[in-house]
């Protein structure tokens, strides 16, 4: 199967192409078959190729397709590169991706806003899967960049899928532009890397990375981090992700939870060789992760929109992954990437079921009491939540625990660990809040569950993976990626790590079910200000709008007429002015003409006399 590796990205691409050229004229059922089927087939091929790869025992497998371009010594080739990292990634992308596609065939069926957009939706989704696969399979940073930009594009297209609402368009453009800022940094990183090492081939570059001096390695590491930060919605380029929830919920599940947003994690993991040479850059990765983790988990606590809660949660979970990479627990980071893909996809899909059943109601305070009426979504949400909170034995527990314990040992002291544990506590708090408010209590909106097998089937599979994904895959990944954690679990730090989230659940239950009154705290002026500060996402949007957007708009407004043109207009006006003055001399009077001739004669004679 390995020789058919190219089929893995090619199948979704073919699906996209088929849907693109038929211009939405195919019957929806065939669209569904093509859309989900192409990804499903890709998953099968990936599975087959992966098994063969694991059995072969080789460290990597490369399939060269063609040389993209050849200019002097710049010869990036389109080569697919399979190693444990990309294998895990492609497995997640095709596997989880297929489940989400399957769910979407039901979710998007006879959609209320875009009933004619069914084919367009799956075209974009397939294109996304293709791009994401190119991102992780590309053996060259330029190919990676192709996928990188491709997923950004699809993200833009899908966030703005309901394009008739200008707000969605705004959210889509914001996502694209903010991540482009990161992409720009990344592109500069590529320029620098090429200048220093003469190749963008990842393996070649990493092999030659030893030639880099420390400063250069740090620069490259920081620039690539810039790219990763943008794509993975980390501070300071995180502001686009909550708005990106404007897209259909399967999109949020696939792109803004399971796959695309983890591309930054993949990039840093892939370029580990550079970060090994640049401790400063690596520390920056960890700091970015920690800061994002804290900021977003506090923010999640104050959101009311179920998808925004999940979005902030995603940011914080990716913060864990960044922190993992930063503190050196890179296999644990990848492990968390995978488990997070399971449980976060589950959470999003389940919330999508809820939203659909409530006729697109997303405010958790307008839900309530749903656990009886929507049992499958509720069960799925619950399972996803406990995995998110990292209750022991769930998949999230395995990976998060490994990260935090590595952080404990980090050279700078236990600060990363402490921050991570605090965030874990907060995670428990906001997750509990979400579950309690939305599913317990009294019913505020009457749901109509219309989900069928194609919708709850994926939920079930993902639920199983969320629970068991940790221990099922732990040993395999431990093998493939290298040792995931080193610390025995009987350890004070380990104990705190395990217990604190549980405390969070208990506290959250009491507070949000109203059994414990904290109104005096929340309603105090300080509490209120803090709440609004958190709710706004720590005012990043507010600041960015004033620092970047507003000045740009101002310039655009005042300079619409192009100030440079003024120079030419003035020249033209002056020339015209000369004409008018000159025309005045042409009075038509004979004697005036004669007088001028006389003056001319005198001037000529004066010139002659003076030379």
């Amino acid at each position, binding site marked *: 199967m390995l020789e058919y590796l190219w089929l893995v990205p090619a199948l979704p691409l073919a699906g996209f192409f088929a849907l693109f050229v038929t211009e939405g004229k195919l019957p929806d059922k065939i669209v569904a078959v093509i859309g989900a089927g192409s990804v499903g087939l890709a998953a099968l091929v990936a599975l087959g190729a992966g098994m063969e790869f694991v059995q072969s025992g080789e460290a990597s497998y490369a399939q060269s397709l063609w040389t993209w371009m050849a200019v002097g010594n710049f010869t990036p080739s389109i080569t697919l590169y399979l190693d444990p990292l990309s294998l895990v990634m492609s497995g997640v992308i095709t596997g989880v991706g297929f489940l989400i596609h399957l769910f979407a065939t039901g979710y998007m069926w006879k959609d209320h806003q875009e009933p004619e957009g069914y084919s367009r939706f799956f075209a974009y989704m397939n294109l996304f899967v293709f791009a994401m696969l190119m991102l992780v399979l590309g053996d060259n940073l330029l190919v990676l960049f192709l996928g990188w930009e491709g997923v950004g594009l699809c993200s833009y297209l899908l966030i703005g899928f309901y394009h008739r609402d200008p707000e969605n368009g705004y959210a889509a453009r914001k996502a694209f532009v903010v991540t482009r800022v990161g992409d720009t940094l990344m592109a500069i990183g590529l320029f620098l890397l090429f200048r220093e090492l003469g190749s963008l081939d990842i393996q070649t570059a990493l092999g030659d990375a030893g030639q880099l001096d420390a400063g250069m390695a740090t620069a490259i590491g920081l620039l690539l981090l810039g790219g990763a930060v943008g794509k993975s919605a980390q501070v300071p380029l995180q502001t686009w992700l909550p708005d990106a929830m404007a897209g259909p919920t399967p999109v949020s599940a696939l792109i803004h939870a399971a796959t695309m947003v983890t591309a930054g994690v993949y990039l840093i993991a892939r370029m580990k060789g550079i970060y090994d040479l640049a401790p400063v850059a690596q520390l920056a990765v960890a700091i970015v992760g920690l800061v994002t983790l804290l900021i977003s988990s506090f923010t999640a606590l104050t959101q009311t929109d179920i998808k925004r809660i999940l979005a902030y949660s995603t940011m914080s979970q990716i913060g864990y992954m960044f922190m993992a990479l930063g503190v050196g627990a890179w296999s644990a980071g990848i492990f968390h990437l995978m488990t997070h893909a399971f449980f976060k996809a589950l959470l999003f899909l389940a919330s999508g079921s809820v939203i659909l059943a409530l006729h697109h109601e997303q405010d958790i305070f307008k839900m309530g009491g749903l656990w009886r009426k929507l049992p499958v979504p509720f069960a799925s949400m619950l399972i996803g939540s406990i995995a998110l909170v990292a209750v022991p034995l769930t998949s999230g527990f395995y990976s998060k625990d490994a990260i935090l314990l590595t952080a404990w040992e980090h050279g700078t002291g236990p600060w990363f660990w402490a921050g991570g544990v605090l965030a874990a506590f907060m995670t428990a708090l906001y997750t509990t809040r979400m579950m309690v408010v939305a599913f317990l209590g009294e019913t505020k909106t009457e749901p109509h569950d219309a989900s069928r097998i194609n919708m709850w089937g994926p939920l079930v599979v993902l639920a199983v993976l969320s629970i068991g994904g940790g221990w099922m895959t732990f040993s395999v990944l431990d093998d493939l990626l290298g040792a995931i954690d080193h610390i025995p679990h009987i350890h004070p730090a380990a104990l705190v790590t395990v217990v604190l989230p549980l405390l969070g659940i208990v506290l959250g239950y009491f507070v949000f079910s109203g059994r414990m009154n904290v109104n005096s705290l929340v309603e105090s002026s300080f509490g209120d200000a803090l709440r609004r500060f958190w709710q706004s996402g720590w005012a990043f949007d507010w600041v960015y709008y004033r620092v970047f957007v507003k000045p740009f708009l101002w310039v655009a407004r005042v300079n619409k007429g192009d100030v440079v043109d003024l120079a030419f207009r003035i020249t033209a006006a002056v020339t015209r002015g000369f004409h008018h003055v*000159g*025309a005045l*001399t042409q009075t038509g009077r004979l004697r*005036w*003409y004669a007088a001028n*001739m006389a003056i*001319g*004669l005198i001037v000529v004679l004066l010139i002659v006399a003076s*030379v």
Partner: protein
Amino acid sequence: MSAAEVWALAPYLALAGGIALLLLAVAALRSHRLAFWGAIATLAIPLAFVPTVLGGGTQIVDTVLEIDGYALFFFVLFSLAAIATAVLSARYLGSRATHRQEFYLLLTTATLGAAVTAGASHFATFLMGLEVLSISLYAMIAYPEEGHPPLEAAAKYLVLSGAASSTMLFGMALIYAASGSLAFEAAGDIAAGEHNVLVLGQAMLLVGVFFKLSLVPFHMWTPDVYQGAPAPVTGFVATVSKGAVFAVLLRYAIDADLLSSPAVGIVVAVIAVLSMVVGNILALLQTNLKRLLAYSSIAHLGYLMIALVVAGTAAGQALGVESGLFYVAGYFLMTLAAFGVITVLSNETEDADQISGYDGLLWRRPVVAAVLAAAALALAGIPLTVGFFAKFYLVAAGVGNAAWGLVWALIVGSAIGIYYYLRIVFAMTKRPDDDRPEGGRRVPWEGFVTVALLGLLIILLGLHPSPFIEFVRELGGP
């Protein structure tokens, strides 16, 4: 006077004889047809002598006329321009004068004057030729029997031209006083004390010449005369009269080594630059096509001064003369074409001189409009037309002799010029409004053929100028 000298005079004698015959014929038989065809014959027959005379080499007739390739080039050019003018005038004047016969006499006489001027190598012939030309022109300008403009134009031209001629004459007298010779060439050895008088005289002579060439600041008569004169006559004034003066100026400048005097050099350069810039600026927003072309001619004569300056240097003499001749020929074509179009579009009483009247001409009379467009673009110096190579020649001459200031002025002037030439083209391309009645006037066929021919030549020389360039080179300088 040797036989060879007499033979060399053959074209001139034929032209003069033809005029005499025409005079008698017109006096005896008041037939327009006879006068017209007589004039055509008078102008055409002398051309038959030209090739043989040209083959005989340069003849200097009694020091007053130098009949060489240069003189004959202008002879032919003037005759052809006069023929075109005659053809264009025939119908145009029909509605403006009860008797057209004398017009042809004036036209042929003016041509003779111009031809003599171009061959002059002596102040006497210079004076004679120029005044025969000018006096004929006064009458030609005032020829129409009705309306103020022709009369006003003629009066202005007469008075101002008279003043200029006087200045020129006075200059000649001073030169003669300094050098003791009236021939162009003898100005070589002059006592130091006389030198100032000589330069003073040359300056006054130049002022007179500059007037005739309508260079700034002696240009002010130009638009008024161009506008007031009958359209075909304007074409004749713009071409033949200026061509003749330029021819004699160039000859005099070279023979007398005029530009070796720094003072004269400065005067010429300043006047040239002023003309290029002021001429173009004055034309910029002009709405009357005849006036616009007048201002444009001011600029063009300014450009032409580059040829004079270059020809005045020892190294650049050949190139300067060549470029001058080529430019003059090209300028004749473009100007005659432009005024030809104005003539053929004019109705019984009014000249077609408002640019707004040309709106949509391309759709009504495509060929005529194309000719005017070609002429305008040629005047602007755009490739595909002879105007480009004419200007190219000048810039090449200027650059080749490091006349940077003049070349820059030419570039600036041309840059301004593009605007108003293009305005003409733009007006013609306007789509006609549906409610506007079609201009029903018929274009006379002979006028049509003339302008079409001129247009064709503009394009032809713009595509393949090489044979003509080689021809001009072989003529040699004055």
